[in-house]
């Protein structure tokens, strides 16, 4: 790694942004000049500057989703020059800096394009489908106050580490945006794998994968055709191995579901 100088020469670029007033409205690209930018400015700060200028003129600022600006909340969701989260690997849009672009470049900024994520306005899409998938089974059913001592169930470090790799998902949806099928398999498999790797997740392991996959299908996400654009776009570099793991889980759960003996007991009693 080479030490760089802090400030390089300022640059000027043109931002070609998708503007769309609302869900049903027609959209179009609009060009905005962004001049004399410090290369250490973040991409979102560049948009802030353009927006301040638009607001000063009484014009509608570019709507874009953002919050923590440190790559962990998963709110930001720009497609920059055709790539979800922009040109650099393993980061979110908010961690993209202007030094990644050349002086004079025209930069194309779009929202995610995936039908389960409809456009709300400009660069903002509705990703509530992810919440619905979580609600279908992305949990361990444990009431507050009921658990045993945390160290009562030792978990092999390797399993805990692998579960953590999956658990890092920030729910940004870049995997869906990057996939030609708009598949949510990477997102769903991350949660299925995290909980499936841990002893706490075993009682609901089958129902979890079956319910989450069913909800994913119902919401219109496509299937995986093994091209792994998802993990290439993932800001947390979540591995597509988890998709394979989920497929195995799904198959096993489907068989068990079909052939398992079931109790006839019903609730109630004295």
């Amino acid at each position: 790694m080479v030490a760089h100088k802090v400030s390089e020469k300022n640059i000027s670029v043109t931002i070609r942004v998708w503007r769309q007033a609302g869900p049903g409205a027609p959209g179009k690209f609009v060009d905005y000049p962004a001049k004399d930018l410090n290369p250490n400015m973040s991409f979102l700060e560049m948009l802030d500057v353009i927006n301040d200028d638009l607001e000063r003129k009484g014009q509608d600022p570019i709507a874009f989703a953002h919050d923590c600006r440190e790559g962990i909340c998963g709110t930001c969701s720009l497609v920059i020059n055709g790539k979800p989260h922009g040109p650099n690997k393993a980061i979110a849009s908010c961690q993209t800096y202007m030094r990644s672009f050349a002086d004079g470049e025209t930069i194309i900024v779009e929202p995610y394009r995936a039908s389960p994520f409809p456009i709300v306005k400009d660069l903002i899409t509705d990703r509530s489908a992810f919440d619905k998938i979580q609600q279908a089974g992305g949990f361990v059913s444990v009431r507050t106050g009921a658990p045993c001592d945390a160290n009562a169930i030792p978990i092999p470090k390797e399993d805990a580490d692998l579960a953590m790799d999956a658990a890092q998902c920030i729910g940004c949806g870049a995997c869906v945006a990057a996939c030609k099928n708009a598949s949510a398999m990477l997102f769903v498999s991350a949660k299925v794998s995290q909980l499936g790797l841990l002893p706490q997740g075993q009682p609901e392991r089958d129902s979890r994968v079956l319910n989450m996959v069913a909800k994913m299908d119902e919401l219109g996400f496509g299937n995986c055709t093994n091209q792994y654009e998802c993990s290439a776009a993932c800001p947390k570099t979540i591995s597509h191995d988890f998709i394979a793991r989920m497929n195995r889980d799904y198959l096993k759960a489907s068989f068990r579901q079909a052939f398992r003996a079931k109790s006839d007991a019903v609730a109630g009693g004295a």
Partner: protein
Amino acid sequence: MAQLNSKIPSGALADKWRKYKTEIKLVNPANKRKYKIIVVGAGLAGSSASATLAELGYQVETFVFHDSPRRAHSIAAQGGVNAAKNYQNDGDSVHRLYYDTIKGGDYRAREANVHRLAEVSVNIIDQCVAQGVPFAREYGGLLANRSFGGAQVSRTFYARGQTGQQLLLGAYSALSKMVGQGAVKLHVNSEMLDLVVVDGQAKGIIVRNLVTGEITRHAADAVILGTGGYGNVFNLSTYARGSNVTATWRAYKRGACFANPCYTQIHPTCIPVSGEYQSKLTLMSESLRNDGRIWVPKKAEDCKKAPADIAEADRDYYLERLYPSFGNLAPRDVSSRAAKRMCDEGRGVGPTGLGVYLDFADAIQRFGKQAASRANLSNPSAEKILELGEAAVKERYGNLFDIYHEITNESAYKQPMRIYPAVHYTMGGLWVDYNLMSNLPGLFVLGEANFSDHGANRLGASALMQGLADGYFVVPYTIGDYLAGIKPGSCPSADAPEFKAAEQYIRDFTNRLLNAKGTEPVNYYHKKLGKIMWDYCGMARTKEGLEKALVEIPKLRAEFWANVNVPGSGDTLNQALERAGRLADFIELGELMCRDALTREESCGGHFREEYQYPDGECKRDDEKFAHVAAWEFQGEGKTPLRNVEPLNYEFTKMSVRSYK
């Protein structure tokens, strides 16, 4: 004048909570479903409370301004969560966690609240593990711990550098389950803009849908706020851009007291500001100070030189010089103030002169030599030592060095990091009693939004602990005591006149912002406010500066309302309007913070008044005059708020000088 009864139960400190739980009123299971509870916010406190109350059988409606509960800013906490498990057998106990926390808060928190926090800390870990939170583990499969500032034991549980994320996703999963079952009605993109008070009790909220612009009224038997802290009053902070004070501020204007607003935490190790355009400051974990050495040039004229060109003899390792026994591990407030002093002396580094070096060169040499000796290399070359040393530093701090590189484009392996203190947390918040209920009956406040447990300074890894303690283990009990006293089904209609009046107030407020049609964007005023707050109510405060701020802020407020330009309309997604409303509240809060800082004529924790210090620069508390909570009560627009006082009666612990020398 507000009635501030802390309702601290009698009895021995360690028995209070246990005994209290057996004495407070219960709501029977068949009646629970007749009560509706509104929860605002879905961070650690809001999500955990929503899930738990729904499990108990209450009707819960949860409102969050984010597009998903998982986006709440609890997600960004890095370090860890404290719990008195004593898994390391290093002598930890509930009492020690209590003592460290109350001392860390510079004896400005309530004993009983802090002790309860320490007690339930152990339940939090059990709960989170049961949810599938992948905490770090040892090879034997048991949970790992590390140590954190202000403690002499290893009691911090962590999930890599993403503990907040994992705990929030655990609470979010519990909430999601209840939403899926229909037990919680979740409203996303929904910002609370007002609290509705009926007959002196909090009975509902007014909400704006951020996507459609629709303004709606919601009634309930009780309202819970878990809406976080207000550090963005400084504009630049480690908070998310959307974090705001609006929910708690509007509750304040409806009669809830705001306690100790001037208590803010400035974290010493953040990446410095690089330009006017900056929107956000990023934290570099405090753990770096275990191995990094902090310095500035001895001579101001060396500041613009490359650090490598400054001779060892010309460097001032000022923390090691000023605090020989703690050195680079001096507490957060002390380290932050020292960095500011160096920069004020003209010895700050970097393009803006507001930065100090955090240097790993010595650590790289030390680790390199150790590694070489472990590998039995005799006479290793300087290059080999460097290579081994950098590898060892990478193993410990690689992810932080990567973040630093991403933001600054500099390699901290090759040249020292530049760091500077930044606003990180606010200890003040709405006043609550032992039940976490505000002086407005029916209004409960959890997590960072309340003032209760951290006193004047919060220790590392305690914020996550408090948010989850309040939501999982405190409010589910204490809210029952309130609800048991009101008749099931007595919840007012959302068509009651109080609701309609509050809605109209919000519509008018919104229209005023939209109709100003001035010449400057919202951010212009936010930057101005941030500068006033940072200069006069930041790391070091003076009577003169605060008085100046109290003149400048009202001027800024008038200018903002007269000259802001908020384009567009209120009946659509309008991010400029969202920011404008939040900033209007921040400006008013800023004034209250300065007023609070001015009237607290002592230094304690994060509140440092230059007039009140020992000759060595340490905080000089005044326990005789200021061993109390200042709870500010709104008196109407344009009127000076009333400063109510809740004395802090220390029955069990001696208030002593908090020295880390």
